[in-house]
């Protein structure tokens, strides 16, 4: 196996890395369809290509050397389950184990980014291991944040199970507890009941959650 990618391969990959179709590869490299198909075949053999079916049965290729490594990112998990899609140039890949819904929620909260947190709300209804989420939330000082957002999810998404009693018992703050921000300086106009219950400022209003008006069975 050669140590380096050949300069020609590397330059070619630079030109076509990212989302492509047969037609766009043909134009980018100024080659005919037959050559483009052969190129896709050889890059797929190396593991550089993942394929998705686009509209009108067009094949859409995601070309990147990183694809050869496989792995999953938290963003992949969020995008799999959430109607709010994320796109990021940040690379955080996980290999050799399944990434749980519980740790993905904690990841999203830890970023303190508004869109990440809104997108992660869809994952709350899939929490299976409450002990795990309690353990992770406690480790990251996010117990009240998780509780408040779960209550919010019960409001915006139908048929979400009740929070287990043990979580409520160990997590609900005392009335005199100081209010905490999930995202500094952001608080809600619409969810004051939940905010007061958990002494947490929720960083969005009803309008910000429009993408959650979807059929839950989809």
């Amino acid at each position, binding site marked *: 196996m*050669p140590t*380096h990618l050949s300069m020609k391969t590397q330059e070619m990959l630079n030109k076509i890395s990212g989302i492509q179709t047969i037609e766009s590869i043909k134009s980018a490299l100024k080659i005919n369809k037959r050559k483009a198909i052969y190129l896709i075949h050889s890059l797929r053999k190396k*593991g550089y290509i993942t394929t998705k079916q686009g509209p009108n049965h067009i094949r859409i290729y995601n070309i990147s050397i990183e694809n050869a490594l496989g*792995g999953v990112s938290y963003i992949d998990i969020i995008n799999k389950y959430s109607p709010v899609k994320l796109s990021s140039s940040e*690379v955080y890949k996980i290999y050799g184990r399944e990434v749980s819904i519980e740790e993905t929620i904690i990841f999203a909260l830890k970023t303190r980014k508004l869109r990440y947190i809104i997108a992660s709300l869809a994952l709350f209804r899939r929490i299976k291991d409450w002990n795990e989420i309690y353990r992770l939330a406690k480790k990251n000082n996010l117990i009240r944040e998780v509780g408040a957002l779960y209550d919010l999810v019960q409001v915006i998404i139908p048929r979400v199970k009740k929070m287990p009693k043990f979580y409520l018992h160990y997590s609900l703050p005392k009335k005199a507890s100081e209010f905490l921000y999930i995202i500094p300086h952001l608080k809600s106009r619409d969810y004051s009941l939940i905010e007061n219950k958990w002494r947490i400022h929720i960083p969005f209003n009803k309008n910000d959650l429009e993408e959650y008006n979807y059929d839950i069975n989809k």
Partner: protein
Amino acid sequence: MISINEQKNLLVTLGNKLPKQITTYAIGGTAMMFLGFKESTKDIDLVFTSSEERNLFKKTAESFGYNEMDSVIVYGVKNNRPMMINLGNSRFDLFLMDVIDFTFSPSMQERAEQVHHFGKNLIIRIADKHDIILMKCATNRARDEEDIINIVKISDINWNILIEEAKKQVKLGRETAFLEMGELIEKLISKYKLNISKKIGDKFYTLLKEQAEKKKKNYDKKV
């Protein structure tokens, strides 16, 4: 040689065996593989920021049969040589903060944006391409030059990052940073005919001159 997939499997195995979570930084060939510059590497170069974590990693690798080897064989008698362990065709070079003549500075750590999490407990951050050049400039092994050329030819290099980092390295006490970078640029231009502005090499030599003058002034003051 170890391929990107073999490397991944190895790191996953180690990550699952580590008793607690540790974070380390990949430099050299390993980082180049993650950044898409290479398909295989001879060794896995990691920089640790704590000796406790480095020892834990080494102990875990040893439980799989890795043996310690003498780093003088590869690095000669240079300072800040890594701890080296090998098994079959895979070898780990485990540095602690310093990589020969360079310190893995806080700004280098910040620039290492890509994160790869192997198994349960091994988090590897990938050094930025600019810092890979600096490190390779420091280790100066036979194949390092080839790697530097590959990075410079294929990607866009912001030479200002290298100039600023070299300044930081000198402040951290790594006195040879300007000299080594100046020599490297000169070689890349004259020997390998790379399209790099001569001004960049001159900048390093100007900084080197200033560094020498400053040193002389300090000596004169003492006298």
